């Protein structure tokens, strides 16, 4: 019968019209600034640096090995070593910048980091009023505590803590042996 398909379509849209008032499966809109979706644990946005203890700069796990800088596909990480007065590089970054206007959130820096010092953040409200300077995050912007890491990625952070603890114990046990093998990359 001619018109059957069209009438079916009308019924369908009417059903959706009514459904949008009572059926949460149909009305999936979240009104963003007021309502926010709970992010899944794995959710990632831009990297941050984990620090232990209370001092965000001194406690950084980062040893400035520059592996992430090298592996980063869009080359958005910039690291300069801290040096002591004689110019010998220290295991600490002097500059650690991430240009989040370039970063593509691929998480490769996290995967290649042997020291579990760089992790993915979940903060997504990062809009700025300027295109260049304000979108470059510096060391002090990037440093976030281990507690914060536990808050956003609890499962992953527990696993990381367990590994680090095991390593530390192993390290203490073999204190006599000076060689510290780079632990295998996680994940």
């Amino acid at each position, binding site marked *: *019968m*001619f*018109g059957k*398909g*069209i009438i079916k*379509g*009308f019924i*369908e*849209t*009417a059903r*959706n*019209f009514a*459904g*949008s*008032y009572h059926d949460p499966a*149909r*009305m*999936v*809109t979240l*009104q963003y600034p007021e309502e926010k979706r709970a992010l899944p644990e794995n959710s990632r946005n831009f990297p941050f640096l984990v620090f232990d203890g209370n001092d965000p700069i001194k406690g950084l796990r980062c040893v400035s090995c520059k592996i992430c800088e090298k592996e980063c596909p869009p080359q958005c990480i910039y690291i300069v070593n801290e040096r002591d007065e004689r110019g010998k590089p220290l295991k600490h970054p002097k500059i650690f910048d991430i240009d989040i206007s370039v970063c593509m959130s691929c998480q490769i820096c996290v995967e290649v980091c042997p020291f579990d010092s760089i992790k993915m953040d979940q903060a997504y409200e990062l809009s700025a009023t300027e295109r260049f300077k304000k979108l470059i995050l510096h060391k002090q912007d990037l440093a976030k505590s281990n507690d914060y890491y536990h808050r956003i990625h609890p499962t992953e952070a527990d696993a990381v803590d367990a590994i680090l603890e095991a390593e530390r114990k192993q390290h203490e046990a073999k204190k006599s042996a000076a060689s510290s093998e780079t632990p295998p990359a996680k994940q």
Partner: protein
Amino acid sequence: MINTGLAAIFLWAGLEQGLGKLLDHGLSLLPPAWRTWATIVVLVGVMLGVFASLFALSTLLERKGLGRMQNRLGPNRVGPYGLLQPVADGIKMLTKEDIVPRGADGVVHFLAPLVLFAPLTLSFAVLPYGRHWVPLNLDAGLLFFFAAGSASELAAFMAGWSSRNKYSMLGGMRAIAQMISFEMPLVVASLSVVMISGTMSLAAIVERQEAWLWIFPKWNVFTPWGLAGFGLFIVAAMAETNRSPFDLPEGESEIIGGFMTEYSGFKYAVFFMGEYFGMFAVSGLAVTLFLGGWNAPLSFLPASFLWFFAKLMALVLVFIWVRGTLPRVRVDQLMNLAWKYLFPMTLLNLFVAALWHYTAVWRAPGGLALRWVLCFAAIAVPCAVLARAMMRSHKWAPRVYRFGD
């Protein structure tokens, strides 16, 4: 609940009477020489005000309704429930830059929205909004309506041609072809009403429908020819007002914005408003011709212009529903629909109306039912057969698929 509703309706009817009296009284206070002009000013002001606010309301309704049909919320940020959204849109439109392409024909480009808009507002003058509420009760009101509407074709062409844009040109061509083609079925569909009512005065047409079968109204739509005519009229009206699924002249996904591509700011707003006003005008005509105008839907309810606007808005909602559901047809299919389907069917409907008229003498019990069945079959069967034949000839059919392993 029902009682309150009834009370409200009667209260409104009383108010309406009072309002009319008050208006008359107020006008009679003026010196006689001024009365005509004062009446004109009041009428024009009220009509423009009412339809402009109706326009604001229906843009909001459309966006909300479409949103809900698409499982979205629709505008809800400006004012409570987004009610002030049309105001915000208006401010936006008014403050936007008015861009005229360098190669455009400035004068024609400027005139096109006006030529579209002015005649459309004229056509509101002949619609009967309530008993004695006809701004301009012309003897040939229906003809006036179509005459006023015919200028919009010229406007679409002017807009398309003057923009000096190929998409605008295509849109303009489509608009003319479409409007001319669908004016035929539109006029012929309303002719059946003229034939039965014996008058072209819209007020008189509504008065003819003021009859009751027990408590149910005897509107034209409740006759076989009226039902078919109403359906055909609405389809033609959708095309005439460039509403989806016949919105080819704008054909957003194909030719960007059609003849409105190069319009911005206030001129675009006027086009936009013109589109809605066209929809109101043609819905108002449909209400007048087929749905009993200002007559109440049940005999014991008072007549009021509220009914007219309620019916008009109901039709507008149908338009919105259609827009939310159907994809657009193609230009050749549109022409086929107009000339090979709607036009012959409306012509046939004239004969069915005549048949209905001449079988009115069958007074025997069951005569009405027989009349109904006969007339309905006379229009419905050809409609279905022709539709089937068209589908067949193009080999349009649902398909069954085979599977490979």
